[in-house]
Structure formats: C-alpha cells, structure tokens
C-alpha cells in the first residue's frame, strides 16, 4: 500500500497521426500535472487537495477542454462544469453553467465545504462565486482560437462534438466520423489515494462542442463522471450522455464492492460492457494504492504514478496492454 495518482485529459478518437505540434504541448501538460500531483502527495497533502490542485492545472492549460480552452456552446459561449468527491466522507460538490470562474473545480469544492448544498448552477453558482471571492475573469479569457474553429466546423458539419483534436484543415479526411461526432476529448480529471487509503476524485470540463446552451453532461453528476468512496476513486471522460446512463464512476466501485472484482477488472468491465464502444475512458485508484486507466476509444490523454516508482504518460494503448 502506498500513494497513487492518475489523471486524464480526455478520451476519444485521437488520431494516431496527431501532428507533433498538437501532441507535444498536451504530453508536456500531462507530465507537468503528474509532477504537481506526485510532489503534493509526497508532501503529505490530502488526496482532496491533490486532485483539486491537479485539476486546476489542467483547467489553466488551454490545450484541454476545461477552464481555459473549454469548447464552446452553439452560441459561441462558455459554460463550464465540475465536481469533486471525498472518498472517506462521500461529501461532494458540483457546479454547472459557469462563465467567469477561472477554476470551476475550486468552486465545486467551495460548494461542498461552504454551503449546505451539493450542486449549484448558472446564475446562482456565479453569484456564489462572487460571494466567496474566488477568482473570476471576463468570459473571453477561456475562449481559444482553436475552439472558435472547432465550433465553426461542428456547425458546418451540423454535429455536436466532444472535442476535435484533428487538424483544422477542411480537406483532412482522416477522421472516421461516428454517428454523433468524431474525436472525443471530453474532460479533465484526477484521482488520488494517499498511503492511508484516503481517496478523492475531481473532474472538470467545458462540455461538448456546439452543445445547446444549458446542456449539462456527466462531469458534474456524482456517480456518472466522478465518484469516490472508501474502496476507490474514479473520474470518467467521453460522451456525457452515455456516461450518465451508464453511471460509470459509481459502477466501477459497485462492481468492486458487490462482485468482488479488482480495480482493474471493474474498470475494464465497465468500459467494455456498460458503455458503447468509442464513448468512454476513465482513470481510477483503489484504497490499496492500485491504479488503472481504461478506455474504449482510440486513445485517452492520461498519466499515472504510484509510490513504488511506476509511472506512465500516454495517449494510445501501450504495448503491454
């Protein structure tokens, strides 16, 4: 038993041909965020603090679909959502419809700690943010040129997408469109366990490209995108609607608890049997310090490390998987 941490920057149809200039900054971000998380665990920070810290880093990074770099609604606006859960107490916090809050995950944490509620959304959440004095900026801060392009393309193709890491050139035919869109980088998230078996999970996103205004996905839904109890902590990514109906994060824990599956087995079962192919990825850690990263998409931006020195940063399936 020791500490363990895993984080993701989204699962989807990430083309193996992803250009270096698009791949490298994302890999560098994974490396950086992993280090931030590992250092915090080594400094004995609680897993709840660690997952919040790591997700803040991912939110601040414009290459991932959370905080800055969030994808746009069909009106070209930003609506961010996030949730956080503490395994020991099963306390949780969630937010949706944020437009000015620099770090949605931190607001989710404040909802958990400073209100009698679990979930605040839209105007009410923004008002709460101001009352709490959390950092807010003009909504334009979150919008990147890349995402403006993505929205344009999605509208042209009349698609709602999770994300679109493929090159922006219109003549690019490499994508293999599925029924409801192509490459899927839905979310960012982090799970962590310390050497005492305390677990926590956090997930944050800008949602789907070209989503309807007011659309809520799986990310702020406890049991869907985020879950932690005293057995494991899970953060999921992919097609929100599928993750919600599959109660993905909760099911990993339920399989461990009710069927005695191991962390790895439970995660594999959920991504293989409970959600259609091409729709989901997740990272999870167990109270025993195990880690697993499972997905049924082409790839998932991910990284993990355990106290015994193992670490991995990857996008596509690694050889031994």
């Amino acid at each position, binding site marked *: 038993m020791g500490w363990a941490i895993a984080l993701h920057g989204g699962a989807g149809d990430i083309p193996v041909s992803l250009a270096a200039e698009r791949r490298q900054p994302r890999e560098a971000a994974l490396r950086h965020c992993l280090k931030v998380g590992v250092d915090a665990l080594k400094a004995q920070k609680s897993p709840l603090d660690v997952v919040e810290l790591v997700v803040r880093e991912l939110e601040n990074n414009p290459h991932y679909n959370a905080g800055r770099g969030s994808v746009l609604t069909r009106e070209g606006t930003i609506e961010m959502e996030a949730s956080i859960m503490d395994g020991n107490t*099963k306390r949780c916090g969630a937010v949706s*419809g944020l437009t000015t809050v620099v770090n949605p995950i931190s607001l989710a944490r404040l909802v958990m700690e400073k209100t009698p509620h679990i*979930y*605040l959304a*839209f105007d009410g959440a923004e008002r709460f943010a101001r009352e709490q004095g959390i950092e807010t900026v003009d909504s334009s801060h979150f919008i990147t040129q890349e995402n403006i392009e993505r929205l344009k393309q999605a509208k042209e193709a009349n698609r709602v997408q999770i994300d679109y890491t493929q090159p922006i050139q219109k003549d690019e035919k490499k994508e293999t469109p599925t029924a409801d869109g192509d490459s899927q980088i839905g979310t960012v998230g982090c799970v962590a366990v310390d050497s005492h078996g305390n677990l926590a999970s956090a997930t944050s996103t800008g949602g789907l490209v070209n989503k309807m205004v007011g659309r809520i996905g799986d990310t702020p*839904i406890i*049991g869907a995108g985020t879950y932690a109890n005293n057995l494991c902590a899970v953060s999921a990514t992919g097609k929100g609607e599928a993750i919600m109906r599959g109660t993905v994060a909760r099911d990993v824990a*339920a399989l461990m608890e009710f069927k005695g599956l191991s962390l790895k087995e439970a995660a594999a079962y959920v991504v293989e049997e409970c959600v259609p192919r091409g729709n989901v990825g997740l990272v999870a850690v167990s109270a025993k310090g195990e880690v697993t990263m499972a997905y049924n998409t082409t790839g998932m931006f991910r990284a993990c490390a355990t106290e015994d020195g193992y670490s991995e940063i990857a996008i596509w399936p690694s050889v031994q998987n």
Partner: protein
Amino acid sequence: MGGWAIAVHGGAGVDPNLPPHVQEEAKKLLTRCLNLGISALRSNHSAIDVVELVVRELETDPLFNSGRGSALTANGTVEMEASIMDGKGRRCGAVSGLTTVKNPVSLARLVMDKSPHSYLAFSGAEDFARQQGVELVENEYFVTEENVGMLKLAKEANTIVFDYRIPAVGSETCSAVAESPLQMNGLPISVYAPETVGCVVVDNQGRCAAATSTGGLMNKMNGRIGDSPLIGAGTYACNLCGVSCTGEGEAIIRGTLAREVAAVMEYKGLSLQEAVDFVIKERLDEGFAGLIAVSNKGDVACGFNTTGMFRGCATEDGFMEVGIWE
C-alpha cells in the same frame, strides 16, 4: 409474479402533527394518481408514458412539492427540476431551473426524446421549452399562499435555536420544534416540505420506468440543484427495475440511491424488496430518505427511514395500498 405494477410518492419526511384533513387530502390525491396510472396500464400504455402522465398529475395538483405548490427559493420564486428514465435502453432526460414550464416532467421527456442531450437547465431549458411549444405560465402560477408562509417560517428557523416555538401554518397544527425536534435538511419538520413526487412503473411487457419531479428545498439558494434531476441519485431505471427517491438531497446524491437499488439487484442478485431494504438500512448513514421501486417481475416495494412517506402502490393482481406512516 409478472404483470404490471405501479408506485407513486409525494415525498418522504412528514410532520407527525400534520392535520388529519391534510392527510386525507394527500391520500385522496395518491389514490387518484394511482388510479390514473392503473387505467393507463390496463389500456396497455408503456411504462414511460404512464410515469409521465402520473407525475404530470402530481405536478398539477398544488398539494405536493412539485409544479404548482413547489417549495420556494430564498427569493420567493420557484425553480423546478425533474428527471425521467426509460429502463429499456436506459434513455434518460432531466431538467433543472425551470420557472415557467407548467409540467417539468414532460419537458424532461422532451429532452430525452427530442434533443441530442440528456439534461438541460435554466435559461437553456426554458428556451428549449419555448421551441417545443410546451405549456408555459408565469412563475406566480406555481406559488401558493401556503408556501409563502412556509418560506417565512423557514427563514426564521434558519436563524433560531431548537427551542423556538414555530407558530402553526393552518389552523390545527401545533408547533413541532419544541416538542419534537425532528429535522430534515436542516429545517424543523413542520416547516420542511417533503421534497418531491415520483412514480415508478413496470408495464405488462416487463419494461420499467421512473420519473421524479420537485420544486426542491424550501428557502434554497437560487441555482441549487438537488437529487431529483440527477440520474442515479433521485431517479433510475434499467431492465431490472425502476426507482424514484425522495428526502435529503445530499444523502441521496452521496448514496447514488436509485442506482444502488438496481446495482445490488444486478451485482448481488438481491430481490427488489431485499435491495430496497438494504439500501435504506445501509446506504443512508446519517441521512433521511425514502424510495419507491418496481421490478421487471411485477414486484413493487417501498422503503424509508423518515417519519412517514406519502405513497401508494398497486399491482395487477388487485393489490392496492395508500399510506403515510410506517
């Protein structure tokens, strides 16, 4: 075994001093809703249609906390939410932050059937409602005088200690706080409005469905979302069962209560009643909640650890029961 089954609820956590005439009204409403559902089931309507139509009836009646008669936010306005789930295919729809939609459960159904998404909220949901042409009314329509009074009491309760005697709303109730300091969601039980209505159905083809609708917690912060619109928490249906929960939102969300019933059936092979009992007994920790459930085999069950739950259930073999207390 086999055949259709239906259960409805009007919320868990009932003031033990609730005046008898209000209890009678509640039972009459539950009976009426059950009969509506039974009639539809006998006419071979699908489970998903039946749960929607029954919850619409509960929303329209001002007695319980949903649609008209919803609890009020801290500003005295109404913000409603609902969710619906079809066990066949586990399709779902949910809405939050509605202020003008007369029947939130029907908008949730439209989200499920007519939008590319599963959950819409606040102004986006209201825009969608307009596009879909559902019946819209002014926010005042949902506000009842009784709830205006309750809001005032809730605000007072939030600034007082337990021995304050809360004056009665309605002629016959006496204060609850000093004599029975029961609380739910941080409010004395005489002021707490049981939060929700719901319906679960299994039709004669063995398909399960569930729907839940609410105005939420009295005196809630604007923008607060509870368990009712959250799939897996307040509502869940799969090919094994349909579940609708009510009570303390936090406890239901943390416990992913509705999904839990289905998960122990699915992964541990428990029967419906065993699953319901397990969840109520083991999954609520210090929280208070209740739920109703049906299974694809035609079983119906309910469970609660609160002081009462407004509920009714019926099965094809003629069983029918409406109740409030244990």
